[in-house]
């Protein structure tokens, strides 16, 4: 199981491969270098609707890449254009350095795990998995070896004779995965493959997908609307909205330093406060809120004094200080009136109102047993300056991120 060579070339299945370099990372002379999938200014229109809007994207060889966004954000359309199921209205799609924009799906060395799995009901598991190999006239003996190996990989050894109707949802999902991976594609596309599974199975499959991806070394492009799922399994995430990429980067970066309000709101809850930049002090930027409170933020030399900014902090970064306790000198603080406290076992979720009238929420680990304050009480909300993120508001937030490489 250690060798899962990725095929070079578009259709020939038995091209020579180097077992010591399963993902073919070394000695690549392709024009796109490290990128296995490159989209250049890709536009897809359905009638008057722009589904994908001048998208530039480079996906690195061997990475687990996720496209995350609400329904209608263009993520599935983008995936389908990579797979060859939709033709871009404009722009170019390159696979491993080759222009495949006009190549039909069956001639691309890319395989897809569909949301509905798409298992053939008239074939058993074995024949389903062997389908792609047989279309490429792989010798029967090798078909058998590779199908067995693929079923092993997804922990379904011995299920070859079963039909689709005899499999659970999770098993169907694994068969779909084996059926795609057995072809050793350059890129595996996954269109919300876990969407139909229940939560527990979903969590389990997330880890399993990650393990399999590491094991086979194939580039995975994963589409999901579940931010937690994307953060759990991805090396990099592209957060999409209205046919464009709002932000692209590793999960921690996208979560901790969202670049736009959309990203801040889509990846978990955020507390956003408007203010004006007042220059820097001690290596930290200063933002003055309407109430006069000063918030320290990670500085950026490009900011100009007087610029309007929106600063944000995640609810779990906030410490709720009961009246009487003071914040440490380095912390940002704002005052808040407790509106409600929701007990959730491991944590409390608090909802506050700031003097400006904005809602703020905070998670607090249930360490002391009991809420820190009663509704109506005024407390201080404190957090570290480095946990503050900044979203520009003078320009429209979206559409000006550097797309592609972060």
């Amino acid at each position, binding site marked *: 199981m250690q060798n899962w060579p990725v095929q070079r070339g578009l259709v020939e299945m038995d091209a020579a491969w180097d077992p010591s370099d399963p993902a073919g990372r070394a000695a690549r002379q392709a024009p796109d270098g490290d990128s296995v999938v490159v989209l250049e200014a890709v536009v897809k229109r359905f009638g008057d609707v722009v589904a994908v809007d001048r998208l530039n994207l480079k996906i690195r060889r061997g990475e687990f890449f996720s496209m995350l966004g609400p329904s209608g954000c263009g993520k599935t359309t983008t995936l389908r254009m990579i797979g060859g199921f939709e033709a871009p209205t404009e722009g170019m799609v390159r696979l491993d350095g080759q222009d495949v924009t006009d190549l039909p799906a*069956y001639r691309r060395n*890319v*395989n897809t795990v*569909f949301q*509905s799995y*798409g298992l*053939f009901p*008239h074939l058993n598991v074995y024949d389903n998995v062997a*389908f792609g190999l047989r279309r490429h006239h792989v010798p029967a003996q090798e078909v058998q070896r590779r199908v067995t190996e693929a079923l092993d990989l997804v922990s379904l050894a011995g299920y070859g004779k079963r039909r*689709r109707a005899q499999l659970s949802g999770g098993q169907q999902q694994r068969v779909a995965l084996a059926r795609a991976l057995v072809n050793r594609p350059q890129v595996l596309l996954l269109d919300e493959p876990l969407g139909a599974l229940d939560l527990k199975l979903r969590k389990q499959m997330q880890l399993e997908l990650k393990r399999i991806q590491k094991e086979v070394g194939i580039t995975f492009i994963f589409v999901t609307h579940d931010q937690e799922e994307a953060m759990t399994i991805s090396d990099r995430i592209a957060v999409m909205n209205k046919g464009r990429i709002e932000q692209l980067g590793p999960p921690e970066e996208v979560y901790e330093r969202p670049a736009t309000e959309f990203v801040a709101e889509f990846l978990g809850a955020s507390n956003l406060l408007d203010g004006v930049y007042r220059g820097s002090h001690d290596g930290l930027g200063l933002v003055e809120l309407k109430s006069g409170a000063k918030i320290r933020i990670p500085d950026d030399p490009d900011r100009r004094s007087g610029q309007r900014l929106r600063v944000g902090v995640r609810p779990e970064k906030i410490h709720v200080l009961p009246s009487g306790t003071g914040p440490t000198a380095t912390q940002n603080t704002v005052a808040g009136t407790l509106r409600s406290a929701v007990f959730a076992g491991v944590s409390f979720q608090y909802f506050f109102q700031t003097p400006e009238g904005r809602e703020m929420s905070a998670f607090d680990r249930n360490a002391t047993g009991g809420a820190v304050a009663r509704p109506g009480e005024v407390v201080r909300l404190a957090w570290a300056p480095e946990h503050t993120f900044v979203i520009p508001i003078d320009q429209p937030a979206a559409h000006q991120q550097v797309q592609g490489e972060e």
Partner: protein
Amino acid sequence: MFLFFLLPILTLAIMSLQSGDFFNGFVFTWNVGNYSRGISLYSEQYLHAIEYGGAATIVALLVAYPAAYWIAFHAGPRKSSYLLAVLLPFFVSFVIRTLSWGVLLADDGPLFGPLKSAQLLPLDFRVLATPVAVTGGLAYTFFPFMLLPVYASLEKIDRGLIESAQDLYANRFEVLRRVIIPLSLPGVFAGVLLTGIPAIADYVNQDLLGGVGTTMVGRVIERQFEVSLNYPLAAALAFVFMLGLLATLLLYQRIFGTEQIMGD
């Protein structure tokens, strides 16, 4: 079931073993002679029925499958209009339709008359009263019974499966061969039954489009009942016919049975 199926069959079976004639009455006498006489006299007509009916079923399938395929996969939003257009002629009584075919295919009819006077066809060329006319007529008469089940099974195919096949390197031909055709077999199975059974038993087409040499067993049975008034012989012929059909059906079911075709 008893009233509308078993009772008539039982009556038929009893009648087929009677002897006598219409004017002096029929008596039940275990007269097995009806069977042997029927089979030896009319074996050629039985064969005709199987030949023409079978050929008509194949012709209907060959025309209906591509038509149904096109409507199901390539007709876009106007699917139902196309379906209606194909089925519209069948709102006219089939006797009238068959008669019109007779007129159309007549030796000096609108089709062959001009071709003959232009000397493009020999003067003794004819379609009417030949097996071709009968087969064609049968195929046409029962065309909807082929088209509709085939169309229904094609329409039901999950379009995602076609994308799956394309994703797994199947070109258009292989998608058709490996996915669409196998998944439409239940419809083909139903269509063949619905077309084949009435086509084999039909007697109108060969009456209106055929000649003396193309008589099918259905016609013989009808004649025996209505003209010769030999009820026992007609019943015996019908019974043999029915048993033959039943045996064929069971065999057909064994070979192409739905169980094998359907995955779930």
